[in-house]
């Protein structure tokens, strides 16, 4: 019976006593489609996350370094961070969904093994999210301890990121699972001695500065466009300086990764795909920096746009690289190509058409609304800064 066949643990090389069998339904479409969707959405998710976490850090910074331009930057982040969070969540859904389709049996297992931490993500995120909204709405009314509100949200986000990094490394190391579970059936394990965890974590945090800095550069470009030359320029310069923190952290992380698992990295570097990714990433990084620098003092939107695209490219490369690493490390236990496909083209078509229509509609609406938002912001600025 087909079900029985499917219920044999994935046509495995090394039979692992714990590795759950494939889901009886197999994949709904060829995996590469799912991978493509998840690469796209995950990259956007990471950018939103970087923007938010970086934004929180900069917001905090502006509370401590009171400088002329900072008040405006604080307002900018203060009002936009909650939106950042809501898009982190929304853009995070598809990758997580697809992760469960492609790597379900690994992902569920690892999640349960660290269940008591995994579930904490929810209450913590609710708290952090509410804090940011509280800050947004009550900042003007009662200043004072607002910095503390932000300061409280920051570690929460760091902690959540750490939980995610751990889960996704635990996914790749089935060999540890049995011992971990026997020791903690309540899912009370966070770190599990995976050497690459901390460098990976550093990679996450590192991106924050780039994204947040870029956002400030965008803001500057608009300011200049509306004729607020000086603060616009200041804002952009500030943004650029912030962006420069990222490469430092990323290089450190890369070195860390290498020394964590030199053998694996060396092995990975044999593959041409990996090398190509690395090259693109490096070029993209440099490009992002250059375009960001070029956009200083200009009201042209093209440079910030190019900078953003290059940054996106870098993040996308990292995402793909991560997936390749995962597949590589799971090779002994799991082979994607061996998973049967029971196609659901009909439903897939519905999804795609919904996606296209939705995106088109949203873009059109945004085009209608953004001028209004812009003029609103502009009037507010005009009140704040005469001239």
């Amino acid at each position, binding site marked *: *019976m087909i*079900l029985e066949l499917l219920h044999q643990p994935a046509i495995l090389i090394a039979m692992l006593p*714990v*590795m*759950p*069998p494939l*889901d009886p*339904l*197999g*994949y*709904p479409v060829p995996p590469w489609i799912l991978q493509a969707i998840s690469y796209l959405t995950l990259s956007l998710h990471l950018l939103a996350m970087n923007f938010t976490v970086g934004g929180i850090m900069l917001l905090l910074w502006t509370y401590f370094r009171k400088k002329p331009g900072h008040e405006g930057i604080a307002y900018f982040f203060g009002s936009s961070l*909650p*939106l950042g969070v*809501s898009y982190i*969540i*929304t853009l995070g*859904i*598809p990758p*997580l*969904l697809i992760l*469960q*389709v492609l790597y*379900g*049996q690994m*992902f*569920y297992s690892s*999640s*349960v093994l660290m*269940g*008591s931490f*995994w*579930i904490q*993500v*929810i209450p913590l*995120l*609710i708290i952090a*999210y*509410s804090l940011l*909204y509280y800050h947004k709405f009550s900042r003007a009314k009662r200043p004072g301890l607002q910095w503390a509100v932000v300061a409280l949200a920051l570690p929460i986000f760091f902690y959540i990121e750490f939980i995610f990094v751990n889960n996704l490394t635990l996914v790749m190391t089935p060999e540890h699972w*049995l011992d971990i*579970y*026997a020791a903690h*059936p*309540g899912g009370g394990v966070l770190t599990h001695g995976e050497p690459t965890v901390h460098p990976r974590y550093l990679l996450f945090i590192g991106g924050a500065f780039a994204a947040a800095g870029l956002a400030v550069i965008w803001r500057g470009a608009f300011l200049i466009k509306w004729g607020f030359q000086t603060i616009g320029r200041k804002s952009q310069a500030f943004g650029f300086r912030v962006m420069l923190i990222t490469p430092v952290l990323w290089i450190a992380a890369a070195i860390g990764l290498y020394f964590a698992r030199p053998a694996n990295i060396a092995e990975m570097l044999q593959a041409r795909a990996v090398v190509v990714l690395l090259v693109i990433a490096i070029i993209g990084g440099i490009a992002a920096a250059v375009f960001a620098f070029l956009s200083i003092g200009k009201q042209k939107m093209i440079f910030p746009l190019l900078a953003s695209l290059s940054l996106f490219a870098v993040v996308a490369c990292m995402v793909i690289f991560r997936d390749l690493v995962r597949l590589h490390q799971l090779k002994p236990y799991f082979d994607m190509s061996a998973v049967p496909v029971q196609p*659901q083209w*009909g*439903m897939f078509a*519905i*999804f795609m058409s*919904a*996606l296209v229509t*939705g995106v088109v*509609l*949203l873009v059109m*609406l*945004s085009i209608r*609304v953004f001028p*209004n*938002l812009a003029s*609103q912001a502009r009037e507010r600025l005009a009140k704040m800064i005469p001239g």
Partner: protein
Amino acid sequence: MNYPFWDIPFLGNGLVVAIIAIIHILISHLAIGGGAFLFVTELWSDRQPMGQKIRDWLHRYATYFLVYTTVFGAMTGVGIWFAIQLANPEATSLLIHQFVFAWATEWVMFLGELTTLYLYFYGWQKNSRSLQVFLAGAYFVIAWFSLFIINGILSFMLTPGAWQLAQPNIFHGFFNPGFVPSLILRTFVMFLIGGLFGIIVATKIRNDDEFKAKIINFSAKWVIPAAIIVPVMMLWYWSTLPANTVALIKGGAVGVAGGKLEIITRYFWLAVVSGFLIVFGTLFISFRPQAASTAGAIALFLIAQLGVMGAEFFREMARKPYVIYNVLYSNSLWKYHTDDQNYMQTAFLDNARWDPRPEPLSPQHGEWIFRLQCASCHTRNGYRSIAERTKDWTAEFGYRWFLDMDKTGIMPPFQGTNEDRAALSAYLVSLHGDTTTAQQILDQVEQAPADSIANQAAANDMIGKVKP
């Protein structure tokens, strides 16, 4: 069995899911009904002399609405998903693999909801009237479609209808017997909740009792459709329920704790009573709208929360003993496996994974069977406590009872060998100090073979004795 079990002492992981879900379902219904409320109120305000005044109030509604739904609604929604991954990976995996693109489509709706809502809210001062009305309308329609989708998946779990594991057809599963009634039911409940929220925000109007009364009467009208339609839909929904469930609700399983009052029945009545109280509460408030207090309005909203709690607990329990009706038991035992005798007879721990291969017939043996086969519903001594349910058991009784527990209609069949049954029974009675070992049970049964009619009869009329 295939997956590790997330063993939370006392609470039990099922309750974690329930708690998150109950909060989420009320808010998510508000997120849609409130959208309709925004849209209709926008239109209404255009036809009122005091239109601007109404819109200023509506902005307040929108503010509360935005924060409440995007923070708590969205997060608890993701929360349910996180929790079910942990509580029942096997079922989650099946649902995800069957409905991945349904969910993906629902995600498109989320994206749409959020974006339109933000454009609507942040463009409040500048957007043209027509644009605002359009945005509100778009928000509601998109949000409602997200309900349309999730409703298909939820109702699938209770009434899979023509869907089969062997040749799964997503549309059979999606448009299942329970789909339409529960969709209509939820839609009208949404309007009701949107209205109740309106009443709360209206009570915040100070120093203008006339305007307050006007808004409250407007909001109160949103309760009527539900008050009339819901009972009808309930009957329809009822007609789609599996026979076993209906039997359980009327009278409950024979002689279980609470006599004729199975817990599922109690929650069913909680839902009904809440409905009746909401109708009357609305009546009282709209008799003297100018005096309505925020406390009172919130009280009304909380009744809805309790009603949702009753209804959802009812829906969850109606599936007993399955998590996906007739497909997968709550303890991740597959229905098609239970039809296969030699699967059912193989040693449990050979089928299961994740156990550290305990010594046969040792206490650990029993504990691991409990953890991987029972604990998905029963905690040791907390929620649905097994210690409490087996307190008047003898070890030998347990050993026999496992053979017939599925006859109660609320327990899955037992998977495992005689040794497994002995080990489990020994472990359970050990929870309240009985020191009989698995080996002793087996020896006792040697003298009186389990299949002898007398013992069978004994076990049978003991079935009532357990508290499911």
